């Protein structure tokens, strides 16, 4: 039968599947619903933890469905691919059509168009066609936008539009999503994320990459000079600070004290304050001075470590008390001098001069415990991140263009009527927010109708 449409070819059918908005809506909803699983089931935990929570059969099922790392599972990624293909196809299908409409607007208000426009007004005026056309063109310019004038036979058509950019909003938004995905993929392929602990005074040139056994060469060395923890008077943490140096070829080329929310960046690699802890045991600071007060040495005593003092003997820290006999922090030391029995006594941090009473050749004073800390740093290189930000900026701009601009079009048709009067039709339409446009149209209507020759 001649009037029956030919059945679409398989390629057309595939294409029609991918350009449908219905598919987009279904994909959005399915992505939303499936994403919930990963928020209920804690992701990327060690298997032992899951075994504690779930029965064997449900563990096996969830493991099979990749629910323990679902956002990186093949099926979730496949949905994201489907989403992107759908988005791209919709754009390829619709963008040229939109561009054609924008480039070649319907500048004439013919009867077919008139029928589709719900906002329309008709009236008649005495006078000549050209005079009224010029008057209404001026009125439209002042109350809406400068119109294009088309003369055709005994008719004059005026066409004015505003907010044509709103037509591009949806494409800018869709493009932004693709740009974000490109940025994310670039970051994953070309960048790395790692984590490293650096004890105070030590340096690293490589960091272990997160979630793998690989290590990443930094291309330079990072040293942690010091770590400090500040607290509020209430004891809550106020700041974690790491004094970091970047060393290249044996020279310090950069130095920065980083805190949470203020990282260090060198050659595209970022170091973020993330964690901290105590590296090894604490050492006790003991100052050694002559009787007249001239300092001889400052010792760092590790627990039970014997340290020699020239011309005196050996000293060993054996005990520490935060509040010894109510006198605050104190260190118990054992001093052995050649040929003499070992002497054991306490040094009080708050009273550095008390050791004079021992009436020995040197005075020892305890300067407190020093715990050697390590800083825990997130290390990241993400060459795609700026592309992601570009996409994000475009997304906000695109959404605002799409929803807050409206492509508004107004036509005026003037025709010489049979009775010698000029028949006027004013009509308009808007791509968005018709309610607001109705009000604007009323104002245009009032303004245009109010003008006289």
């Amino acid at each position, binding site marked *: 039968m001649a009037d029956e449409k030919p059945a679409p070819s398989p390629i057309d059918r595939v294409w029609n599947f991918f350009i449908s*908005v*219905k598919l*987009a*809506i279904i994909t*959005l*909803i399915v*992505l*939303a619903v499936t*994403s*919930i699983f*990963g*928020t*209920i089931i*804690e*992701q990327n935990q060690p298997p032992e933890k899951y075994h504690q929570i779930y029965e064997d059969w449900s563990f096996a099922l969830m493991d099979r469905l990749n629910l323990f790392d679902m*956002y990186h599972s093949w099926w979730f990624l496949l949905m994201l691919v489907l989403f992107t293909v759908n988005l791209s196809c919709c754009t390829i299908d619709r963008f040229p059509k939109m561009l054609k409409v924008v480039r070649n607007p319907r500048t004439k208000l013919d009867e077919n168009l008139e029928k589709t426009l719900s906002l329309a007004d008709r009236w008649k005026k005495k006078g000549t066609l050209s005079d009224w056309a010029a008057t209404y063109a001026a009125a439209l310019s002042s109350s809406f936008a400068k119109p294009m004038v088309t003369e055709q036979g005994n008719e004059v058509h005026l066409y004015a539009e505003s907010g044509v950019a709103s037509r591009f909003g949806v494409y800018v938004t869709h493009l932004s999503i693709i740009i974000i995905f490109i940025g*994310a993929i670039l970051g994953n392929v070309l960048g790395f*994320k790692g984590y490293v602990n650096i004890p105070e005074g030590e340096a690293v040139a490589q960091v272990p990459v997160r979630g793998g056994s690989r290590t990443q060469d930094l291309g330079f060395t990072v040293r942690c000079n010091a770590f400090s923890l500040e607290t*509020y008077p*209430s004891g*809550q*943490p*106020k*700041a*974690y600070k790491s004094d970091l140096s970047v060393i290249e070829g044996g020279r310090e080329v950069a130095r920065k004290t980083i*805190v*949470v*929310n203020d*990282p260090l960046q060198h050659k595209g690699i*970022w170091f*973020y*304050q*993330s964690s901290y802890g105590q590296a090894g045991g604490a050492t006790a600071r003991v100052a050694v001075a002559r009787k007249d007060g001239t300092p001889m040495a400052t010792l760092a005593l590790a627990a039970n470590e014997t340290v020699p003092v020239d011309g005196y003997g050996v000293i060993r820290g054996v005990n520490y008390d935060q509040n010894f006999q109510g006198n605050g922090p104190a260190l118990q030391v054992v001093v052995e001098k050649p040929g003499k029995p070992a002497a054991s006594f306490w040094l009080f941090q708050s009273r550095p001069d008390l050791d004079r009473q021992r009436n020995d050749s040197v005075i020892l004073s305890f300067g407190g415990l020093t715990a050697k800390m390590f800083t825990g740093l*997130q*290390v*990241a290189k*993400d060459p795609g*991140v700026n592309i*992601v*930000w570009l996409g*994000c900026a475009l*997304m*906000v701009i695109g*959404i*605002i263009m799409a*929803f*807050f601009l409206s492509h508004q079009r107004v036509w005026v048709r003037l025709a010489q009527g049979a009775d010698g009067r000029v028949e006027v039709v004013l009509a308009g339409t808007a791509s968005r*927010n018709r*309610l607001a446009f109705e009000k604007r149209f009323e104002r245009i209507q009032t303004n245009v109708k109010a003008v006289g020759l």
Partner: protein
Amino acid sequence: MSNVILFNLTTVLFGVASALYLGALYAKNDRIAVFGTWTCVLAAVVSTAALGVRWYESYQMGIGRIPVTNLYESLVFFAWSVNLLYLVVERKYGSRTFGAFVMPIAFATMLFAVYNDSSIQPLVPALQSYWLHAHVITCFVGYAAFAVSAGVALMYLLKARQEEAKISEGVVGLLPECKMLDDLIYRSIIWGFPFLTAGIITGAAWANYAWGTYWSWDPKETWSLIVWLVYAAFLHARVTRGWHGRRAAILSIVGFLATIMCYLGVNLVLSGLHSYGGG
């Protein structure tokens, strides 16, 4: 703390306003609703002052930070946003009947806030960032817009039943016509959507600056994406497939339930990087 007294007063005012709006509907008396409007205006002044006082008091305590950093503060800020947005809508659409459906959301939020710790605590290091301001404010304006949309969607569902039966009686008869409600559902969402988008983006930017990852599928992040996907579906359904009326209203309510889950559910039920928001 004087800010808490002012917030308690705000709670009472929101309760009074809700009662007045509901009373006006039952009594079919718009004059009662006028008092509701003035109560809302007063509540706006008092709650704005309360936020200012709280901010000032934090400086006096030597902490000095914007009052949007824990559950109590986020709840009062949410209620504050809903109230202001409501007043804008009431003025723009010229109907006070919305109040009976929107103000109870603000009131319930404040009631919930009252049961939370209202003390001003110093900021933990993770929250000490300028991104905090942009992130929280954009998110909450978005949430408030979705709340207004859901309140109106509820009105729509009630009204649509009557309009279909071609009757107009009782409390529901006083509601604005469906066309207007339907439009308002959509308008609120197109305001909320860019704010939510900006909220997610500022959150990602902050996460990247604090942790070196802009997206880590943390439950809060994921739920914000779920909310975003639901409203994206709503907008596609509406704009390209002409979903109006009942289906759009239901989708708006679903979107707001997802929003509540994202805002409160994640902190109260699930665990993750946003856990400080739960205290």
